[in-house]
């Protein structure tokens, strides 16, 4: 069997194998080491002996044996006989029947995700641990995707694991009263993975894993576990609807195409249909949450075959609901855009006033970029350019800064004069 085939099987099995081991033995670190050893054994044996009938069961059995061997030798040293006696035998970790197994495994991988999103961990640590343990990515892959040195990522993951041990986090379904908070935390972690992936698609060719794809895969799993959760359905829908634009959002020279200027024939229609269907089913069923509303907004955009057909009145209403539910300066900014599209640029500009006084927001490039666009709509070209110049100075995204510099330049050329060579994209500042 090929290395690629092996990796695919491995990626499919890893979270369930790890979940079963952590459930049975409690120790995250030791379970992961044992899992790595089982993979090495698989890499040696499967190509010659062929793929076992039940690869997951095979991996769990081999990894469990390693764990038990390890504890036996530790126990021999320390004389702690009772330790191994309390451990679950490997057979018990294997699900008995296929139909029962499906449910048990799904619960295990959900529990593992919730453990990785434990409140004792910071967001970056939750993200790293989730990608390592639940998505089964290698430390190197995660490090490259986040443009940090591999040693940094390795340390972040190992500190996260020891932090879990420190606070005595157990593998188990959280108590009912914590459950919804933990699911929300997990949803935020997955959304962060997605936005990181989606926003960096200009450099996608560089990465061996697309974070956006990983986030969608994990959110699908989460949704299978929690089909009744409107917010999880909303999150999956939001990801699908945003990701549907992937082919249209970057030009061949690497520059970004704003939503209004995208070639909508490049949008992925099956993804859009799936996303729209998910959010339409979720909205009427229960309490409406921020992810469902954002998905609904993305759905309205997706349903317009031309930018000028966009139903801005509906988007404005949805942003108003979102502002009631989860007020934030960024939502106010997005709402202002919708107001401008419905009632004209002056109405939108009025909404930006308070944001320009906000100490955090006024250093955010998007506020000034939006203001520039609204001033432009209003025919105030000079002021618009001044706003775009402020936005360019505050931008930290290289393609966005290039776009804003172009908008700030006098007599507004349509495209940048110098095309951006392909290779300039890999000069990510933190890669050195």
């Amino acid at each position: 069997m090929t290395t690629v085939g092996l990796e695919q099987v491995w990626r499919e099995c890893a979270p369930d194998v790890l979940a079963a081991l952590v459930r049975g033995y409690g120790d995250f670190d030791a379970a992961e080491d044992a899992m790595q050893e089982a993979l090495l054994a698989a890499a040696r044996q499967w190509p010659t002996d062929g793929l076992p009938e039940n690869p997951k069961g095979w991996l769990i059995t081999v990894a469990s044996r390693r764990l038990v061997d390890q504890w036996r030798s530790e126990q021999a040293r320390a004389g702690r006989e009772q330790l191994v006696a309390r451990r679950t035998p490997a057979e018990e970790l294997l699900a008995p029947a296929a139909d029962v197994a499906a449910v048990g495994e799904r619960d295990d991988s959900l529990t593992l995700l919730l453990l990785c999103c434990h409140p004792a961990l910071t967001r970056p640590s939750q993200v790293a641990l989730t990608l390592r343990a639940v998505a089964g990515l290698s430390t190197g892959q995660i490090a490259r995707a986040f443009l940090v040195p591999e040693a940094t990522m390795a340390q972040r993951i190992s500190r996260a694991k020891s932090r879990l041990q420190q606070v005595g986090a157990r593998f188990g379904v959280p108590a009912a009263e914590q459950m919804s908070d933990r699911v929300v935390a997990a949803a935020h972690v997955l959304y962060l993975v997605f936005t990181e992936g989606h926003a960096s698609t200009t450099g996608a060719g560089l990465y061996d894993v697309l974070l956006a794809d990983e986030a969608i895969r994990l959110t699908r799993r989460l949704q299978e576990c929690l089909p009744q959760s409107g917010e999880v359905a909303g999150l999956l829908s939001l990801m699908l609807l945003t990701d549907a634009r992937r082919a249209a959002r970057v030009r061949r020279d690497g520059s970004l195409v704003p939503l209004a200027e995208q070639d909508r024939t490049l949008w992925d229609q099956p993804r859009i249909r799936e996303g729209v269907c998910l959010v339409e089913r979720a909205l009427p069923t229960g309490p409406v949450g921020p992810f469902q509303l954002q998905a609904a907004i993305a759905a309205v955009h997706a349903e317009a075959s031309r930018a000028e057909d966009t139903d801005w009145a509906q988007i404005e209403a949805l942003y108003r609901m979102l502002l009631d539910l989860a007020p934030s300066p960024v939502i106010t900014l997005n709402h202002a855009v919708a107001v401008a599209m419905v009632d004209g640029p002056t109405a939108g500009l009025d909404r930006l006033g308070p944001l320009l006084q906000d100490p955090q927001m006024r250093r955010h490039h998007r506020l000034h970029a939006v203001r520039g666009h609204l001033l432009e709509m209003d025919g105030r070209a000079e002021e618009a350019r001044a706003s775009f110049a402020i936005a360019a100075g505050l931008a930290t995204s290289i393609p966005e800064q290039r776009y804003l510099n172009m908008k700030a330049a006098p007599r507004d050329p349509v495209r940048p004069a110098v095309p951006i060579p392909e290779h300039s994209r890999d000069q990510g500042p933190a890669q050195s």
Partner: protein
Amino acid sequence: MKYVILIHANPDPWGHPTSIYSEEGRALPPEQHEEMDRQFEALLTEISASGEFVTAEALADPVSATLYGWTARGHLATEGPYAEAKEHLAGFFIIDCASRERAEEIAAQFAQPGGVVELRPVMWPGGDDQ
């Protein structure tokens, strides 16, 4: 979001930590230096444990620098230091934080006698389409 914390300092003689080689630093009693060291160690432990610390380097004396200018006929090398500035780049930290506010909170704690600490966002190749 990644940020770089640049430590500009004028230690004389050049040395690390720059705070003990600066005029302002020398004026402080040893107990205060010990206290500052403790606080700094605690900060480093905190940002390592949280996964926010990415990397850091201390730089050698600016006189050890070689400077390369560009001319149409090729590069032109001269011996350092780079500029006749009062302060030089003495070292840097790269941190990865959830927000600008958090980066500011961390960077503020790098302030030290005899220098200026500069926080700058790191540019990245991605971007959003809205």
